[in-house]
């Protein structure tokens, strides 16, 4: 303890350095995220890692000073001595205003750059209209003219989701894509995604929407471009069949075209 009292800075710096290295190693070893299934995921995960790495020294500094002070400057109950009457230190205060300011400014710029990257518009994007309604998601492919209650996307083909709500707020979220946005009654919100990994992923509602909120799930299948084309063609064919059937049944096609998405087209699962 006497050494600590005489040379407190030295020990503190050493301990902090070791703790920082261990801390950074630890936060990088932890597997934080779900798998990466979109091109944006890589950028976002890297940004998160950078934020973590920048945070570790700050937290270690605070912990180290607290623990060290308690060890080195603790007095027994009944000790009537006072600490040194240090009222401030302008240089030190300038330092701890400037360094955090520079740090957050750099991180903000980096965050902005990543934001621009992940939201850059891609040519030839497939448009999918998404509608949230208590408590289900439904999808419409306006260019191909059919609807579906599962979402099927082609790997590496950019998608633009045009998101709407039929009642209250919902939130369209695919954790593996790292992207989400609210479904807002009265306006259309958009997000762009380029799926980059084959597989089945959950579509999760992330905005409290009522009793069924926690079970408002759907799924997205990312398939190869060929499979996607086959699925889309099959869907289009079925839709045309249904329309002609409906025509014979008394002109429901016109109504069907304008009806809420997911209303008529209950063919579950789909091919592909």
């Amino acid at each position, binding site marked *: 303890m006497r050494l600590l009292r005489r040379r407190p800075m030295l020990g503190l710096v050493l301990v902090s350095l070791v703790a920082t290295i261990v801390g950074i190693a630890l936060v990088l070893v932890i597997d934080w995220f779900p798998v990466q299934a979109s091109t944006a995921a890589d950028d976002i995960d890297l940004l998160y890692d950078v934020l973590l790495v920048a945070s570790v020294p700050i937290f270690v500094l605070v912990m180290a000073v607290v623990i060290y002070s308690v060890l080195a400057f603790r007095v027994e109950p009944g000790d009537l001595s006072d600490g*040194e009457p240090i009222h401030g230190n302008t240089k030190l205060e300038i330092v701890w205003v400037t360094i955090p300011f520079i740090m957050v400014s750099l991180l903000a710029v980096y965050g902005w750059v990543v934001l621009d990257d992940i939201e850059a518009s891609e040519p030839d994007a497939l448009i999918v209209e998404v509608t949230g309604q208590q408590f289900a998601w439904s999808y419409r492919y306006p260019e191909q003219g059919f609807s579906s209650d599962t979402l099927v996307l082609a790997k590496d083909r950019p998608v633009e989701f045009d998101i709407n709500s039929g009642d209250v707020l919902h939130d369209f979220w695919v954790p593996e894509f*790292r992207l989400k946005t609210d479904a807002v009654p009265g306006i259309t919100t958009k997000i762009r995604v380029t799926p980059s990994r084959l597989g089945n992923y959950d579509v999760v509602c992330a905005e409290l929407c009522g009793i069924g909120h926690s079970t408002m799930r759907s799924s997205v299948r990312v398939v190869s471009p060929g499979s996607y084309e086959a699925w889309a063609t099959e869907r289009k064919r079925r839709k045309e069949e249904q329309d002609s059937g409906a025509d014979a049944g008394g002109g429901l096609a016109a109504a069907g075209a304008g009806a809420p998405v997911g209303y008529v087209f209950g063919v579950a699962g789909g091919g592909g």
Partner: protein
Amino acid sequence: MTLAARLRGPGWYRAAISQPLSFLFALGLVVLVRALYGYDPLFDWTAITTVALLTMPLGFIVGIGCFDYWFRWASGAPTIPEDHSSHGAKTWWDYFRVNTDHKVIGIQYIVTTFFFFILGGLMAMVIRAELAQPGSQFVDPNTYNGLFSVHASLMIFLFIIPVFAGIANYVIPLMIGAPDMAFPRLNALSFWMLPTAGVMMIASFFADGGAFATGWTAYAPISTETPIGQQFFTIGVQFAGASSIATALNFLVTIITMRAPGMTFWRMPLLVWANFTTSLLVVIATPFIAGSQFFVLLDRSLGFHFFDPAGGGDVLMYQHVFWFYSHPAVYIMMLPGFGIISEVISTHARKPVFGYRMMAFSLVAIVILGFTVWAHHMFVSGMHNWLRVPMMITTMLIAVPTGIKIFSWLATLWRGAIHLTTPMLFALGFVTMFTLGGISGIMLAVIPVVIHVSDTYFVVAHIHYVLFGGSVFTIFAGLYHWFPKITGRMYDETLGKVHFWLSFVFFNLTFGPMHLVGIDGMPRRVADYAEQFGTINALISVSSFLFGLSFLVFLYNMITSWRRGPIAVANPWRAHSIEWQVSSPPPIFNFDEIPTVVGGPYEYGVPGAVHAVFGEKPAPRTVTPAPAGGGGSPPPVE
């Protein structure tokens, strides 16, 4: 006293009569209006409930006696002269009467808010029991949604915000050398509005269709469509908000006009600064949440279309107005805690607060910046895209004044003579845990990250690090610190330390893993979740039950120490600020003679330095007080 006199006079008998009367008034008014308009049916229970939710609390407040003086004065009747006979509390029953003594009101606030804290905590236990494994166990989804909504509303509106008002009520007048608050009757009214709001929120569980289940955020349009329970929130918030605004006005006037001679702004303890800045936030921001809930009320009850796009309404407007209050509310729930921590660390480390002026300036900076960041809660809401980057930048800039405070507390510890008492332990727990909350806060400002983690358990983790590891730890620090002053008895130090370590460990085990599940894809506010999160949620639930049990140690300590603890001396911490220079508990009128302030509040280690002197003439200064600010000559740290 005869029964008739009891029924006429202020108190619980009259309040008990006023309840059915104000209900009948609401019923009569609704039936009359519906009859005049020719509506069918005449008895619309939704309308009657809504009006009764307004009249019954008012009836209670009138019945208990908050308005008696003003009514007499306004009607020209002779007012009852204030003979101060109601000051102080001689029995426990005195705490259940309208009392204008700031010390009694302070205790009323603290005990009432802890009552709601316990209820909110029990709800959290039910929530964790339900979440202990995937699937549905104990409660149905509607009850579940009600539980977390009422939990959050009680914790925010009935615990954290008002318990700080309670601590400040007790301490601030003593700290600035004032005999009471500036408006004692308004102070009593502020307190009595509070339990009505809390009772209303809890009563919503008995409403048709269950408690309000739209979160404490009550986002439109779901809040305009859910069953009648929502009205209990919409209207309850008005009473909690009005209470908050009235108290804040009272603090502002008290601090500006009632400081003892010599107490310049730069000699005020930082707790006074903290409550001064908090009160500014409250009076500016709180009307916005009142507005947002009135919009909801009008949409629900009178068929307005503020949030109905089909009627020309705008759904996002709700969120903008709501967060224009509710982000500053985060600082309303934090700045008073900052003040407490400055008192506790300086006193128990026997050192002046490092960089006193910068500590005060950073509070002011947080107030100003706090109004420029609200839309960071809306990064995925579908608002204008251009608004996001400016809000990200301002949000991250708040880290700078907050960082000043954290680093200054650390520098205050440095080379102190640290007494590791329970308040000090909680203060140190706060500094470290709040740093973690601040770090996740920075992450939640960076838009690409927040697009993924918003509305997930990462946010739940963040808010509990900020509000429990932050605010509630400061509340515990403050209560242990001022317990001897308030009760005149000492708490049990060993139990206090046990309480700290249990809550510190299980707090981290409860809320730490929530970061992980959140990033991994678990949304918040769900009664059920994917199988993959089962193990970690079971761990969180077990930790949370032990965390909840740790509170019993605190409760036991407080109750037994208050009844039978060793008698406390006037100044057990050898603190310099004025509240410690009077007896414990203080005299009924605080000061037999008004003190004169002659120096800074934290001059520990400065030989012969005093903050305030009692007596007609200020004592001659024997030493030149060291400069209070960060500038100038003091010895460098290293």
